């Protein structure tokens, strides 16, 4: 079962894991990645992030990414939740959860989905700093390289 949600509300990864487990039966591995709004590692200091997306297209793209992962690894169950709107430092922002028969498939599928999500799903981050400045986050070439790694695997 594939579940994709783009929402302003927070999520509880334990609750999501219970839901994934309930639909997974006989899986040997569950991998969870939770992304959190990182702060205070740059100057000026981050106050909060604003996440914008393209309703309809974003969900469609995430599902496409999951299906692409399914052509490479055997797994049937995946939950992806991405938050939008205003998020404070420390807030959970994204959850990628994959259950599979074996750990390698679950690990790799989760990493693949996350790498593609960062470079293909239409989300845009705007940083608001404590000194009042703000600006859109630019796409990182390291994220693109991370994604391109999968081409040779």
């Amino acid at each position, binding site marked *: 079962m594939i579940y994709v949600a783009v929402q302003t509300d927070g999520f509880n990864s334990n609750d999501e894991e219970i839901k994934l487990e309930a639909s997974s039966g006989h899986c040997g591995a569950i991998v969870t990645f939770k992304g959190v709004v990182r702060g205070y590692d740059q100057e000026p200091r981050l106050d909060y992030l604003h996440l*914008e997306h*393209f309703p*309809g*297209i974003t969900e469609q793209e995430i599902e496409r990414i999951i299906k692409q992962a399914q052509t490479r690894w055997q797994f049937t169950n995946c939950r992806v939740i*991405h938050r939008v709107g205003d998020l404070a430092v420390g807030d959970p922002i994204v959850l990628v959860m994959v259950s599979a028969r074996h750990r390698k498939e679950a690990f790799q599928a989760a990493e693949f989905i996350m790498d593609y999500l*960062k470079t293909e*799903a239409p989300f845009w981050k705007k940083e608001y700093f404590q000194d009042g400045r703000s600006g*859109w986050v630019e796409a990182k070439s390291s994220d693109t390289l991370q994604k391109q790694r999968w081409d040779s695997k």
Partner: protein
Amino acid sequence: MIKIRYFGSFKDTLSLCEEELVWQSGSTDDLLSVLRKRDELWAETLSDKNIFRLVVNQQIIYQSVLLNDGDEIAILPPVTGG
């Protein structure tokens, strides 16, 4: 008329979320050409050198397509989610 929607940094740079444009005929490439001719800012923002994607009627397109009256086009800057 066609409707054009702008996302992310493009909204701020071009000071526009969406607009409607009278459209006789032409492709997405023709549309970009029309928009780039507006002024230097538009030309720079939508330059070929920049990476951006187009969505026509809720479908991401990978090559130029013909635009028809009533179509909705979205212009997406590089994504930065996750």
